[in-house]
């Protein structure tokens, strides 16, 4: 366990805040985080050369949800992905929940109140091998190494909790933010996505402050991830994490990750 002096911890936290808040809310009253708002105003950029949530520091709360894509025709897929982009960009940026006509059902679940705060949310979308099957004619666009997840020894697999066409990883400071994001996505995509399984995870809240500087002890009592590659080393990331040119992969996968 590393103990950091209060000064250096604060420097690291603000460093994280500085980088992460580039695209965060710019309202004057939010400029100085107070104990009440600390963390909830931190926004991770949604757009960039890579999806957020891969080299982003570990979160305090994570939710993985796999979906079956219910679209019946290839032509429905662009609408699905554009909708996901639009909703996830909003949720990671934060903002006021639009007021609908009072006689219409509310658009938002209301879990986070009238203003959605970013709360360090990242939303990472990935596609499964099954999306590239006979249904949408995408076989030739399948990433070279993408296949159905294999069984490991000692697995006891429940088919209802395996595989999926699409997976979204939601990471933030709190479970509420993740659940709110999931419900928003479900509400926005009726008839296009059906949730298949989900798994939630948690880490102690203080990881928010250390922003990945510590490895954290897991439920088996082990410190997990001490041998992980340093995500700040971009050469290592380009070599081992990101799909790049010259790897015999479809062009659309460049900048993505397995």
């Amino acid at each position, binding site marked *: 366990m590393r103990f950091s002096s209060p000064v250096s911890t604060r420097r690291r936290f603000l460093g994280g805040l500085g980088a992460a808040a580039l695209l965060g809310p710019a309202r004057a009253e939010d400029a100085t985080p107070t104990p009440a708002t600390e963390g909830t105003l931190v926004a991770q950029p949604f757009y960039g050369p890579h999806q957020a949530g891969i080299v982003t520091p570990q979160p305090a709360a994570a939710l993985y949800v796999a979906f*079956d894509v*219910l*679209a*019946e025709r290839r032509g429905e897929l662009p609408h699905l992905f554009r909708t996901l982009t639009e909703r996830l960009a909003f949720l990671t940026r934060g903002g006021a929940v639009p007021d609908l*006509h009072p*006689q*219409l*059902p509310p658009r938002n679940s209301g879990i986070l109140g009238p203003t959605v705060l970013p709360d360090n949310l990242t939303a990472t979308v990935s596609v499964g091998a099954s999306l590239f099957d006979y249904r949408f004619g995408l076989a030739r666009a399948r990433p070279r190494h993408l296949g159905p997840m294999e069984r490991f020894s000692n697995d006891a697999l429940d088919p209802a909790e395996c595989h999926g066409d699409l997976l979204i990883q939601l990471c933030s400071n709190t479970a509420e933010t993740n659940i709110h994001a999931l419900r928003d996505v479900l*509400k926005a995509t*009726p*008839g*296009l996505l*059906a949730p298949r399984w989900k798994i939630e995870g948690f880490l102690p809240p203080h990881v928010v402050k250390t922003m990945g500087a510590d490895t954290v002890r897991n439920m088996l009592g082990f410190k997990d991830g001490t041998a992980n590659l340093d995500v700040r080393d971009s050469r290592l990331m380009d070599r081992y994490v990101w799909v790049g040119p010259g790897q015999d992969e479809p062009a659309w996968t460049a900048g993505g990750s397995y």
Partner: protein
Amino acid sequence: MPEIARLDRDRRRVAAVAVAMLIGLGEPRPASSLEQPDSPRPARQARPIAPELAAALAAYRTYAVAQADAFVRETARFVTAIQAGQLAEARRLYAPARAPYERIEPVAALFPELIKRIDVRSDEFELRERDPAFVGFHRLEMALFTHGTTEGLGEVAERLAAETVTLRDRVAALAIPPAKAVGAASALIEGIAAIKISGEEERYSRTDLWDFQANIEGSKVVFTLLRPLLADRDFVARVERSYKRVEDLLARYRGADGGFQSYDNLTARDRNALKGPITLLAEDLSTLRGRLGLD
């Protein structure tokens, strides 16, 4: 037929039914909530309802009462078979007896204490299937389909038949709140999407597809009555497409006798194929009240 002529024809039909109702049956009496503890308080509508909407609502009320009548009749046939010890006949009559109720379930749900004696499932009880309060259709369903017997069901069956008569009387006396009537279209679909698609409703007989068919029919009746009042033709077209997709899928599971196959026969792929249009229908129909200016 041109759009405008069809709208006019629909409006005239609805108005004709409404007039026939008013002449033949007189104004419905509001439920007297003081004498009947579980009948709902009539909703107070802030603004008067447009006459065309009122006509549609009156036509729906006629339909609801007619289904409540059919529920009494079909349940009586079902109960007679049980009391005569005719197991095969009772099994055959189980799902058809439920159909009229499933068509107007949101209206029946305005009387929750009554529904608890008609349609309750064992989940609600600590003692599950052994709880003495587990009565009604599903208690009979369990005996007929899991235990394969009509023995000892006489009293439960007789009480069920009596409850359907009580329900019919309550529905006939009720002024269905406008928001509830309009909301029935989406409530029926939401019931499928949120609960019934898991197959937990008819867990002994596996006759869930019968229920879905009835739910959809009931939802479509509301929507069809309201269709002339809906300005957004894209919305109408989308809803009708969703209904058709669901109906076509269910039709593939019809048996030779006109009934439906066991819910267990529904493939995972078809269950997923149902989820899409059902969810879309639920979302679209949930906007009906707002589109009609109802609170």
